[in-house]
Structure formats: structure tokens, C-alpha cells
């Protein structure tokens, strides 16, 4: 079998000839909105082939995809997979995504599963459609099904290829009305199987090719539509008004203070406050000029300098050695203590990672048109199905009465502020009975978006006299990653919902590093602490690209390097000692080979005192199924503190390669985004508020510091399914850079980001420790 899912067992009943009736009935995709408490997307049956595919009179195919592309070319890969199964040229397949009236809920963009899971029902539906088309073609040609084949969008007689029937002739405009076997799940887990087996990968001609994205020409010509460009008749512009101290709520509002701004109105419901105006500039001015008296509250945050000690001191709320959404698993501390007691040497180190912001290029935007008994939402959210459901919930509407339409947003790397903007637009549209467009200020995209949580990681290892690991412990302690869960259907997980009284439904969870190291005693666990502010906090946590990956692997892969140094070993060789043969070791070897890695113990022969020094660092991870190894070449300027990762070599095994061009681009984007997070990004705050409000106070990567080269080795595994590549390489970057900084300078940087000030401070501290 190839790479198709096996989540659903095929039933012979699907093979019945009765499934071949071509119905002209209106399919689910065109069903009118009904007053129904099921979300709109549930009107589409995941068990119907027509839900996923349509073929028009010209034989052109439209694939209806219930996940999303956020700029990594997932949709072109989906088109390739559908074209492959139908033996169609790629240019005859279109992909529709993001409209809840047209696509079933496959979970949106989530956990890099766009292809890994999202492609399965589409591939199966396309394979099934091919089977049906063959039968229809044989019938039209008056021959047995065994005598016909498919090529170039037509069924032809093998013995006489001139006799043919195009897909358009066979079914154009009609419906397959063929049932698939659906596994009963929605979201990421949705799968459906037809009776026809998809192709064996050895037959692939379209899958595996480097096709470009289709939306780029419009984007570079400036004609592509983004969420900020949506204009609806009678639309007003809304702005949220945020408190000066986090946690403070409006006590009274002086409406007269914006009386001079034509048409400006205040939306004040519960503790929620916003303004709307007919023109956007007027809404901006009204938000700035509105006089509000705010409640007095205790400043909710510690001094920023005390952040990591606060984490160390704080009582543990939840502890587990297992997964964050599973039952608690007690860590085997006794085993660790016993192993460390036997060791010749015990190493320990602590690593610290800050709060980080999504900081999407533009603050989130949404438009909502509330019509009393129904609503339409235009959103840049990467989960439009859930976002529409969330809007229904906050408006008190049946979920079936809210249609969500995704329009590309200003970048999305998880649960960013888009999920809040959708709710804001809904609340304000209801308040003024007009369509409302909301877009925040830069501060709202940086200071008020949900954050990646800050954490401290405690690592310990025991080595025997030969430098072998006899025991290993890694403990993550930090703020839960789940203040805001990424499913947007629950208004509790939004800023507006929290202020309108929806109960706090935060989940306490973190995670452990992902790797396959086979240490004899290997204990990893995590501990959450209470949030600093429970409601509507600007430090609310949520998923940000590779959630918890950078934090965990900064610790685990730096500590591997520290262990290798202690053992007097080369860090690649040291990792391979503990990796099983197979994909993990292969990927690490592939990176080392492409780099031309010569074994050596990391670190300079003598600590350099000034000038520019260079070093190399390695890191590896397995993120569930995909495996990544990266080697960074880094320059450190000891006089300025500048760290410049000039070159990366990345080896990536993500199963079968569907589109090598966009797979490479996706990995490249991950690496560069992670360079920014590693070197620059740290949400700053005072006891009163978040003070990272723009690109000065939340600096990110500039072009002058961008890598010169990112050399990517794709380890293609045609025998495996495609695994997600949208996130896994992110987590390898902080440790690879940190390890390279050590190799260059002898300085262990155990707190991210590696800003110039931090490098210089580490250098001074190191000099203070040197005798003389």
C-alpha cells in the first residue's frame, strides 16, 4: 500500500453498482442556509464524493478543501494530488478553500497537517471519481470497463484511443452522488475512503513535481485581495479600545469626547469597549480621543527582570510526563535520582525562553455583517470554520446561520489576533446593526495578540567514566500553552468573549522535547504555573508556529551539546550513539554529509577576546512523524555582540515529497522566522502592561542579518505518507545557533533571544570568571 490513510475500513457495500446514479439534485454544496443549530459546514456530507470534487461541462475540476494554505503552497499540493488521481494536467484543477458554505470542516491550518491529513479525503475522492468516470465512459462507449483507460481528462478505448469521452461529457455539471466511507470525524481527524484504491506512488507524474503557487502573480502585481480589502455596502469601521493597565475595565465613558467626529459611536457592552465610525480614519481618531475612566487594579505582572525567577518560584498547577491533552503521567523521579547517584559526573543546566508574539505583518482584520437572524464573517483566520462557529456562539445565533469566508490575511502562524478580530467585528456589527470592519493598531498585533508562553527548562544528566549517558532528566516549567485554545468556536478563547462574561476555559498543558534518544534512564516532564492575569490578558498564551518546539528544543538540543562536550565527543557522533538506525539517524547523517562535517569536540581552543569568530552548531528533532536536522554556521562579533547565522544546512524527512519547490520554500521560511525568534524576539512588559507595541520595542529580523544560504536536503521517502513541514524545522534553529555560538566563543547562552546586549553581557561575565 502507498501512503493513503487507513483510518477508515473500506466496506464492500460501497462497491455496489447502485452508487453510480448521476443525480441532478442540488448537492450539499449548494444547499441554502437553513435555520439549523449545526454549523453551516455540517450541511456538507463528508460521506459524499460531491463534497470534495466537482467537474464542470468543460471537464475542469474544482477540489473543495477544508483546510487552509497560509502561504506555503498547500493548495497547489492538493491540486497536484487530485490531478494525479484523475490523470489530469494540473492546470485543469482548481482548489476552493476557506468558505464554510462550500467546504467541509477539515480543521483549517493546524499542526502542519494540511497535506499530512488534509489531502487524504481529497485523494480518496479523486480516486473514486476516476473509478466512476471509467465506468461511465465504458457505458457511453458501449464497452466493458476493463477496455477503457483515463488520460488527459478523458476516458478512451485502449484498443482504439480515438474513441473517447471527456470528463465534461461524462459528468459535466452533474453530481456523482457516490458515497464515501467517512470516519465520523470533523476537523483534523476527518477522513473518507472510496472503494477505489488511490494510485501507487511509483506511478506518480504530477505529485513530486515543483509547481509554482498560483496566487503569486496577483500578489506581486498588487491586485490580490486580502482581508483588509474587503468592503461591504454600508460598512462601518471599528476599533477596540484597550485599557492602560492590563486587567482594568471601563467604569465610565464620556461619549461627548468623540462628539466632534462625524458618525462616531461607542460600543460598550459588559467590560467590552470599542468605537465605530463611517470612515476608517475617523474610527482611528475616535479610539484615540475617547475619554474613559478605567477601574483601579493591582498591576498584574512581575518586573520583567524577575520573569524567570517568578516561574521558578511559582506553585505547580499541573505536572505530567505525558501529553498535554492526555491523562497525567507521573515522572519517575526515583529512577533519575538512582541513575544520577551511579554516575561519575552529573551535568545540569537551566534554559530560559521568553514570551513571544505572532506579530503578524498587519494587525488582524475582520468584517462581520450581522443581520438579526444570520451573519456573514470575512476573516483571515486560519480556521474559518471554527471562527464562524465562534461568531455564531457570541452572537447567540444558530451556527448554521453564520457563513465564514476566509480571505488571505497578513500572515498566520497559529492562533494569532485574527481569532479575536472576528469576534470584535461580530460584537460591533450587532451593536450598530451595520456591517463592521475591524482592524487593530500595530500595538494590538504585538502587545495584545495571544503569546507563545515563557518557560524555564531544567536539565540534568549523569555520565559514566567513559562519557556515556546513564541517566537523563528534562523538566519544562512555565505558563500553560493553552490559555487560548486554537479552536475558535468557543468565545471564551477570545478577548471579546472574556470581557462579555464567557467563562474562563483555559487548559493547563505543556509538552516535552521530541526526539528518539535512547538513554538508559530518560525522564521528561512538564509543569504549568498559573497565568499572571486570568482574563483578557495581553500575555494570554496560544499556539505560535511549532508550539513549544523552540522552547523545548533550545533546552534539549543545547544540553545534548553540553553533554557531548563533557564526554569529549563530537556532537553529531554523540547524538548518533543514542539514535536508533533508521529515519532519525539517516537525517542527521544527511545533514552532516551535505555540510562536510569533520568530527570535533565543540568550542574554541582558547577563548577569543575580540573580533569576529565563527562556529558551527547542530540540532536534530523528530516532531511526531517528520524528522529534521540542521547545522548552522554562525559569525559572532565579540565587539558588538552581533550573532549572524550565515549559512544553514537542513536535512528534512517529511515522507514522500509532493512539491519540492514549496517544500523547500516552507522549510526556508521556518528557518528564517526562527532565526528572528532566536536572535531578537522577546515580549517586554512592566507590572502594568506589555510594552512591546511595535517593531522598535519588539524587534524582528532585518535583511542585514538574514542568512546568506539555506541549503536544504530533502530526504524523499516515497514509501511513506507525506508529513507536515510547516513547523518542524523551526525548533532546530535556537539550539543550532546557540551551539554554534558556543563553538565560536566558548560562551553558553542559555537565555533566548541572543540579542547583542545578551552576548556582550555573557562575554563580560565570562571575562569576570577568568583569572587575572
Amino acid at each position, binding site marked *: 500500500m502507498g501512503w493513503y490513510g487507513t483510518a477508515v475500513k473500506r466496506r464492500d457495500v460501497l462497491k455496489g453498482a447502485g452508487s453510480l446514479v448521476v443525480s441532478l439534485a442540488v448537492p450539499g454544496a449548494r444547499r441554502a442556509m437553513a435555520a439549523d443549530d449545526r454549523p453551516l459546514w455540517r450541511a456538507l456530507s463528508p460521506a459524499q464524493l460531491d463534497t470534495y470534487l466537482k467537474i464542470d461541462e468543460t471537464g475542469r475540476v474544482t477540489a473543495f478543501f477544508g483546510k487552509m494554505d497560509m502561504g506555503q503552497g498547500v493548495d497547489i499540493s492538493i491540486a497536484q494530488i487530485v490531478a494525479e488521481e484523475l490523470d489530469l494536467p494540473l492546470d485543469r484543477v482548481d482548489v476552493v478553500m476557506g468558505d464554510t458554505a462550500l467546504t467541509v470542516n477539515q480543521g483549517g491550518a493546524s499542526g502542519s497537517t494540511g497535506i499530512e491529513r488534509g489531502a487524504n479525503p481529497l485523494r480518496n475522492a479523486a480516486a473514486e471519481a476516476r473509478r466512476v468516470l471509467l465506468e461511465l465512459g465504458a457505458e457511453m462507449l458501449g464497452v466493458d470497463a476493463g477496455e477503457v483507460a483515463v488520460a488527459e481528462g478523458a476516458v478512451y478505448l485502449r484498443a482504439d484511443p480515438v474513441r473517447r469521452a471527456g470528463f465534461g461529457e461524462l459528468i459535466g455539471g452533474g453530481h456523482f452522488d457516490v458515497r464515501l466511507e467517512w470516519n465520523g470525524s470533523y476537523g483534523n481527524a476527518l477522513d473518507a475512503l472510496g472503494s477505489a484504491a488511490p494510485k501507487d506512488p511509483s506511478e506518480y507524474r504530477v505529485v513530486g513535481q515543483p509547481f509554482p503557487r498560483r496566487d503569486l502573480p496577483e500578489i506581486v*502585481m*498588487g491586485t490580490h485581495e486580502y482581508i483588509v480589502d474587503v468592503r461591504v455596502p454600508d460598512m462601518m469601521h471599528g476599533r477596540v479600545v484597550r485599557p492602560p493597565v492590563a486587567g482594568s475595565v471601563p467604569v465610565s465613558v464620556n461619549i461627548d469626547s468623540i462628539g466632534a467626529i462625524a458618525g462616531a459611536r461607542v460600543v460598550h457592552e459588559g467590560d467590552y469597549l470599542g468605537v465605530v465610525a463611517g470612515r476608517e480614519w475617523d474610527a482611528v481618531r475616535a479610539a484615540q480621543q475617547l475619554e474613559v475612566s478605567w477601574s483601579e487594579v493591582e498591576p498584574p505582572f512581575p518586573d520583567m527582570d524577575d520573569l524567570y525567577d517568578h516561574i521558578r518560584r511559582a506553585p505547580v498547577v499541573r505536572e505530567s510526563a505525558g501529553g498535554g491533552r492526555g491523562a497525567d503521567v507521573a515522572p519517575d523521579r526515583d529512577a533519575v535520582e538512582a541513575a544520577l547517584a551511579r554516575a561519575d559526573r552529573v551535568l545540569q543546566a537551566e534554559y530560559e525562553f521568553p514570551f513571544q508574539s505572532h506579530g503578524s505583518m498587519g494587525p488582524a482584520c475582520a468584517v462581520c455583517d450581522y443581520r438579526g437572524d444570520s451573519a456573514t464573517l470575512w476573516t483571515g483566520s486560519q480556521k474559518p470554520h471554527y471562527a464562524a462557529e465562534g461568531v455564531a456562539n457570541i452572537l447567540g445565533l444558530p451556527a448554521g446561520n453564520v457563513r465564514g469566508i476566509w480571505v488571505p490575511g497578513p500572515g498566520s502562524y497559529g492562533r494569532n489576533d485574527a481569532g479575536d478580530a472576528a469576534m470584535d467585528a461580530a460584537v460591533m456589527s450587532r451593536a450598530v446593526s451595520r456591517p463592521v470592519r475591524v482592524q487593530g493598531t500595530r500595538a494590538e498585533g504585538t502587545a495584545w495578540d495571544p503569546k507563545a508562553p515563557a518557560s524555564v527548562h531544567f536539565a540534568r544528566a549523569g555520565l559514566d567514566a567513559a562519557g556515556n549517558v546513564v541517566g537523563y532528566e528534562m523538566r519544562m516549567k512555565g505558563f500553560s500553552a493553552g490559555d487560548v485554545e486554537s479552536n475558535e468556536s468557543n468565545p471564551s478563547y477570545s478577548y471579546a468573549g472574556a470581557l462579555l462574561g464567557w467563562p474562563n476555559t483555559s487548559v493547563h498543558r505543556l509538552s516535552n522535547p521530541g526526539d528518539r534518544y535512547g538513554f538508559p534512564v530518560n525522564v521528561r516532564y512538564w509543569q504549568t504555573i498559573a497565568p499572571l492575569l486570568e482574563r483578557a490578558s495581553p500575555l494570554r498564551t496560544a499556539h505560535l508556529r511549532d508550539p513549544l518546539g523552540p522552547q523545548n528544543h533550545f533546552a534539549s538540543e543545547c544540553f545534548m551539546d553540553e553533554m557531548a562536550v563533557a564526554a569529549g565527543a563530537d556532537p553529531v557522533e554523540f547524538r548518533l550513539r543514542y539514535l536508533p538506525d533508521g529515519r532519525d539517524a539517516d537525517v542527521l547523517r544527511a545533514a552532516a554529509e551535505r555540510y562536510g562535517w569533520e568530527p570535533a569536540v565543540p568550542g574554541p581552543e582558547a577563548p577569543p577576546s575580540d573580533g569576529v569568530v565563527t562556529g558551527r552548531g547542530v540540532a536534530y528533532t523528530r516532531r511526531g512523524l517528520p524528522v529534521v536536522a540542521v547545522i548552522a554556521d554562525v559569525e559572532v562579533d565579540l565587539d558588538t555582540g552581533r550573532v549572524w547565522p550565515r549559512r544553514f544546512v537542513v536535512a528534512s524527512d517529511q515522507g514522500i515529497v509532493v512539491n519540492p519547490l514549496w517544500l523547500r520554500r516552507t522549510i526556508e*521560511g521556518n528557518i528564517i522566522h526562527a532565526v528572528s525568534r532566536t536572535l531578537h524576539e522577546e515580549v517586554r512588559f512592566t507590572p502594568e502592561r506589555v510594552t512591546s507595541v511595535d517593531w522598535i520595542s519588539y524587534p524582528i529580523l532585518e535583511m542585514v542579518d538574514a542568512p546568506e544560504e539555506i541549503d536544504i536536503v530533502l530526504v524523499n521517502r516515497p514509501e511513506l505518507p507525506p508529513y507536515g513541514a510547516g513547523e518542524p524545522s523551526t525548533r532546530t534553529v535556537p539550539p543550532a545557533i546557540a551551539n554554534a555560538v558556543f563553538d565560536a566563543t566558548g560562551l553558553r547562552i542559555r537565555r533566548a533571544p541572543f540579542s547583542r546586549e545578551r552576548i556582550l553581557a555573557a562575554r563580560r561575565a565570562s571575562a569576570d570568571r577568568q583569572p587575572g
Partner: protein
Amino acid sequence: MAVITLDVDGTAHRLDVEPEMPLLYALRDELGLNNPRFGCGLAQCGSCTVLMDGQPIRACVVPVAAVTGKVQTLSGLGTAEEPHPVQQAFIDEQALFCGYCMNGWILYAAALLESDPNPSDEAIRQAFTGLKCRCGSHSAILRAVKRAAATLSDREG
């Protein structure tokens, strides 16, 4: 309110707006143009970039009354049939992810190549100081600008 005249992509417009309204809001909300986009409102990212008399400016902070020259937007730089060499190079290199920031990168690149047709790697990097991209297309952008420079020098050579 004041009557302001604006020349945008070769078309003259008369607007009745507050003189301090930033050019970005005038272009988007008064003229209905889409491609300059709000990113920060602080001239820190470049998403709102337009050219004024060939030089990049940040439309989010320039009051509409201060616009004295001819404004060119990304959509006025080339056409689908005849893209500007920089636009073509960004397509050829597939040099973007979400693309929200592209006004800045492409217009700054076009202005750079106008003044320095064969820039060094360092010159390109310096020319982009103050532009932001969140998705990580920096390396692809560098490749695209070098490709555009090569295209231009081929044409002239």
C-alpha cells in the same frame, strides 16, 4: 476638510479630506485602492510603501497634504501582461509567503535598481533596512533582486 489633488498611477484625483489624513487612508478609503496596506502606521515595516516621484515613501505617516509629487503604487508599476522586471523576478523565484509586505520589498527593489543597476549583496541588504517580513522570505527576496538585476543588465547589455 480641504480639497487635495493627487496624481496616482497616472490618474488625477480631487479629494475633500482632512489635510492631516495619512496618504494610506486617502488611497485606500477615499480612492478605493487596495495594494498599499496598513502594517504598523509608524513607518517601521513598509507594507504601505508607494513611490513618490520614483522614491519610496511610507504612506501610513505622510499626511495627504504633504504629497507634492506623482504617486505610483505597486499595481501601477507593471501590468499582468508586462510586469516590471522586479515583479517578474519575484514570481520566478517564488519569493514570498503571505505577501502582505510586498509593496515595500518590490518598490524599494525597483527604486534601488533604478539608481544602482548592479548592486552588491551588501547594498541590497542595506537598501532594505527598515522593511519587515514576518514569514521569512528574506533569502528568496535577495535571490529575486539579484535575478531582476541580471535581467535588467541583460536587456541593457
